[in-house]
């Protein structure tokens, strides 16, 4: 209990700064809510007055006074509720937007290592949905909860004032049913989760089977797929039915309790007093009306409390994200790099986890202005080497030296600024071509981007777009070919004036025309630059000043193409295989 209290204060401290500026708004919202709750209490009271005063007295004028009071109260309360809803929701969205911005910008500072462990596509969606849940704290929901609580208190105050003897019987019963309802919903929420899982399973299976239908047909397994899906679908059906009956059954039970127990109780307790002339008929009407109006808010309270709990869970999850170690805390080097001499790997060992060595004692030197090609079977450590060069991961043993200075002592951002990374799968950001080339970095001018585009010969493509550089690339770059994507990634490296080009060549084959274009552009991009290429094309190895042949995390051969083709049978085989050339490997 005390821990939870502490928790609340802790969260309050975190959220308060977001609220500070809009305290007046919050104040107004709370005030409006109080007033509307009070007005809700008023309506049956007006009715009671009509029944108790106007009708027995036969006073039409009084009746109309009450009637118009009723209408005025409804209108006033309506306007207030609207204002309260809009203003407080605005506040909530504002807070959450700020909150999200903070979370996102923190995520960007996290190391690549962390991203490797996430399903990146889902990451944002998760942050989003968590943030949306947190929003419940600042939305109509929390207003409604407070409003309901006030209404509940108000109802009991009025009832108590009118007939305290009746009220003291009802109150404890009502509290018991609220608690019971809370536990019921908690119990049910487990089922909802299970149903969602089953639903995901069913859609997963349909996806699998529809995608693979032709394979399934070729394998004669249609019936099997059908039965398997049916089993999953039926399981979901059973679970959902059971949940539905539990849910509505218990709901029905609660309504039964309210309608029967409370109403009968109220009648049995009030009627004798009415007959005795102590209580009025209006009181009975007020009580009955209140009880009916309480049913839904009370049933909702449990649900609402759970939503608030979920909001705190989400908040906690998000806060966990924001407290993750950022790159600044991992890479603490401060020296500014120079790239006049060479990059040198000295006995580098690296493992992504524990002692699972991906690189074992790797050493090599890349002199400025030279081109190095990395080749070898997949999983031999080429891509890892390239990532280390970019300073994405700290190494476990050995040293990476840039002009003799260990990379760990160098400011990692300054070093990366010198690197132009071109990845195998060209990634396109949501947004225009311009932003894609400059990665949303507005320090890179439009002219710079244009000239980069020019060098990689994408002008024609740009001209073909209605908005030129500002044209949006469709989702996942569907309106752009593989080759054009590749060229955009070249333009990126150029626009950023990279000194060292690091490239992981694509394996996918591209049509000869684009291939030639890429070849020419590559020439332009690589001119006078130091380059490290994970090579998948023959031309890349032919051009290289040195080729490093990787196998199982070690460099087993090194030399030029001609040296290797003569001395290394592994390399010969690789060339024969990977570079699609049979007997003429000497070429």
């Amino acid at each position, binding site marked *: 209990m005390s821990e939870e209290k502490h928790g609340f204060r802790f969260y309050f401290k975190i959220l308060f700064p977001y609220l500070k500026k809009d305290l007046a708004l919050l104040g107004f919202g709370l005030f409006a809510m109080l007033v509307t709750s009070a007005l809700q209490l008023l309506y049956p009271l007006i009715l009671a007055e009509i029944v108790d005063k106007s009708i027995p007295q036969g006073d039409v004028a009084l009746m109309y006074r009450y009637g118009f009071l009723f209408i005025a109260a409804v209108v006033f309360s309506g306007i207030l509720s609207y204002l309260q809803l809009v203003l407080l929701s605005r506040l909530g969205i504002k807070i959450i*937007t700020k909150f999200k911005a903070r979370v996102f910008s923190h995520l960007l500072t996290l190391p690549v290592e962390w991203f490797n462990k996430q399903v990146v596509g889902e990451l944002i969606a998760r942050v989003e949905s968590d943030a949306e849940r947190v929003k419940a704290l600042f939305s109509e929901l929390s207003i409604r909860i407070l409003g309901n609580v006030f209404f509940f208190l108000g109802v009991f105050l009025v009832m108590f004032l009118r007939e305290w003897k009746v009220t003291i019987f009802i109150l404890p019963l009502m509290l018991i049913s609220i608690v019971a309802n809370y536990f019921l919903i908690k119990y049910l929420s487990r089922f909802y989760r299970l149903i969602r899982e089953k639903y995901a399973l069913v859609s997963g299976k349909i996806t699998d089977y529809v995608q693979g239908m032709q394979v399934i047909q070729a394998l004669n397994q249609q019936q099997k797929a*059908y039965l398997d899906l049916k089993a999953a679908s039926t399981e979901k059906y059973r679970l959902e039915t059971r949940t539905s009956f539990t849910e509505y059954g218990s709901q029905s039970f609660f309504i039964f309790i309210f309608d029967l127990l409370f109403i009968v109780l109220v009648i049995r307790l009030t009627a004798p007093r009415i007959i005795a002339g102590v209580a009025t008929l209006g009181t009975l009407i007020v009580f009955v009306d209140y009880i009916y109006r309480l049913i839904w808010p009370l049933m909702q309270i449990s649900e609402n409390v759970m939503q608030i709990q979920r909001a705190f869970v989400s908040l906690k999850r998000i806060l966990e994200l924001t407290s993750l170690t950022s790159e600044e805390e991992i890479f603490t080097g401060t020296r500014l790099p120079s790239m006049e001499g060479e990059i040198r790997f000295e006995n580098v060992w690296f493992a992504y986890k524990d002692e699972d060595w991906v690189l074992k004692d790797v050493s090599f030197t890349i002199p400025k202005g030279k081109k190095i090609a990395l080749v070898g079977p997949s999983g031999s450590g080429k891509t890892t080497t390239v990532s280390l060069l970019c300073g994405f991961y700290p190494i476990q043993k050995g040293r990476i030296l840039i002009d003799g200075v260990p990379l760990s002592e160098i400011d990692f951002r300054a070093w990366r600024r010198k690197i132009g990374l071109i990845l195998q799968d060209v990634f396109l950001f949501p947004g225009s071509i311009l932003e894609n080339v400059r990665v949303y970095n507005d320090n890179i001018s439009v002219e710079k981007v244009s000239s980069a585009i020019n060098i990689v010969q994408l002008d024609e493509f740009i001209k073909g777009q209605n908005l030129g550089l500002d044209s949006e690339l469709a989702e996942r770059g569907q309106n752009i070919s593989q080759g054009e994507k590749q060229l955009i990634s070249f333009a990126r490296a150029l626009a950023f004036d990279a000194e060292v080009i690091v490239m992981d060549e694509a394996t996918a084959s591209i049509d000869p025309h684009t291939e030639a274009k890429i070849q020419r552009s590559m020439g332009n991009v690589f001119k006078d630059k130091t380059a490290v290429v994970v090579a998948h094309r023959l031309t890349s190895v032919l051009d290289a000043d040195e080729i490093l042949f990787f196998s199982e995390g070690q460099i087993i051969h090194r030399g030029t193409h001609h040296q290797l083709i003569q001395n290394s049978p592994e390399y010969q085989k690789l060339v024969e295989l990977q570079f699609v050339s049979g007997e003429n490997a000497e070429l």
Partner: protein
Amino acid sequence: MRNYKHIRWITRVWMTQKWFLLVMLLFTLGSSAVAIANPLLFRKLIDTLKDILSASQVPSDAMQRVNRVVWLFVALGFAQFITGFYPAVRGWVNIRFENYLRMFYFKYIAGKDYRFFQKFRTGDVVTRLTDDLSDYPKISWFLCSGIFRAVNSFSLILFSLAVMFTINVKLTLLSIAPLPLMIVVFYITSDKLYKNFERNQQAISNINNQLEMSFSGIRIVKAFVSEEKYNRFFDLALARRFKTEMGVVKLNAVLHLIYEYIDYFAQTGVILFGGYMAVKGEISVGTFFLFYSYLSMMIYPILDLPQLFVSGKQAFVNIDRLEEMKDYPSFYDQWKGQARPEEFEELRFEDVSFTYPDKTEPAIRDCSFDLKAGERLLILGSTGAGKSTVANLILGLLQPSEGSILLNGIDLRDIDLTALRDLIAYVPQEPLLFSGTVRENVLFANDKATGEEYRIAVDVSQLKQEIESFPQGDETRLGQRGLGVSGGQKQRLTIARALVRNPKLLILDDITASLDAENEEKLWQDINLHFKEIAAIVISHRLSTLHYVDRVLFIDDKGHVHQGTHEELVFKNKDYHDFLHEHLK
């Protein structure tokens, strides 16, 4: 005319659940009756009390009279408890329909040919069989809840009006007079609101999509040191979202308001007119309270009633989308072959041409070749030359536009598809695994394989070591939420899946990506060892594959085919020579 079609469809589906129709009808009317009985009892109670009070002295049986009404409340309470299950039953029937429809239509999909899968993307089909079926306001919901909610609303309104008219015609007319106006106002606003609402929701989900995509390029952001600058993207996206979301909030507030307050507005008529009549003594206090209750009870059903048409429209779209899939033509429906060959003797293509429906040029033309038992054939050709088309034709996944394919001298169309496919093991170009363990995937097409057969299939596919390195060996889960395996491993798993069926003809559609030269050599050695008699068709880009085959089928860029040994073709066929040359460059 169009709507009749839908109504016929709905009737047909309901006829599969006849008993539920009756149950639903009883429940619905029962629940309406119970709902309107409650205010009637209150009227009785209030009037009883009023009577007692207005008597000059309290009658001796006063409490007994009250108790009699109380017993009625108790009885009604129990009835209410039972009708309380009405939504549960409704929900149950909804889910029944969902399950039924899903399986009914999936069965049809399993019998569709490639054209269907070309036309309907997977995501689309999945949506039609999941989202389109479940929850409000989709077809399953409409079939039961949608229809019966309307019946419920309608009966409730009808019952209440009947009671009200019986009691006092004048007051009834006066109380319901403002309702039509309210309904019109409500519909005009809510219709407008919903349209904006949907637009806004769409905008929000677009922005979310963008955000979701944005982290996939984290390496690029970091390599180009644009972390801080990339925030600009977030700020833009979030600002846009803030704006659209505020739009949603305002609309939401209005809708919320309407729902919250409409019953009070509905009651104003009763308070003004009913109050007057009660004051004048034209109606009893109980009647006044009855009208007051009924009006707040009726207003939501009235607003709900036209929902039938709205959700109906939506549901009809879902129906069309389901029927569209079912009615999409499939040539399998006409494939009535009877022959069931058990051995593979010879496959022969005779002047086969094939044109994809959306293309003008044939993918392959006048293709003739043959393949005898135990023979190995390599199909070569540039990307898009129609190599996979040949494989698909053999499998009966495509039907030749011209010419004929003969298996053991029998036209493919005269062969039972299942029997045909039992002879063949096919490894598709795009390796596709299903969710499940490694073992389940390999045994997918042959549950009855022995342990020995399983082991051989895994060994031959050069998977043994890798499977051992998986966290749970061959019980490791793959696919969604399972272990992510590399493309090469995937494809070798599909090779194992094909081999475990003990086929007579193996078709490998471009497996170069999954096997390096060393493994390819081992694969063929092991095939020769364990599947000696197997005939094979190999589609490949890699020239080293030439070592393992007897003959080559070369498809040139125009779709013409040339068959022969490698040596024959190199010397006799210029296109082939050029093709090789191009690839060797």
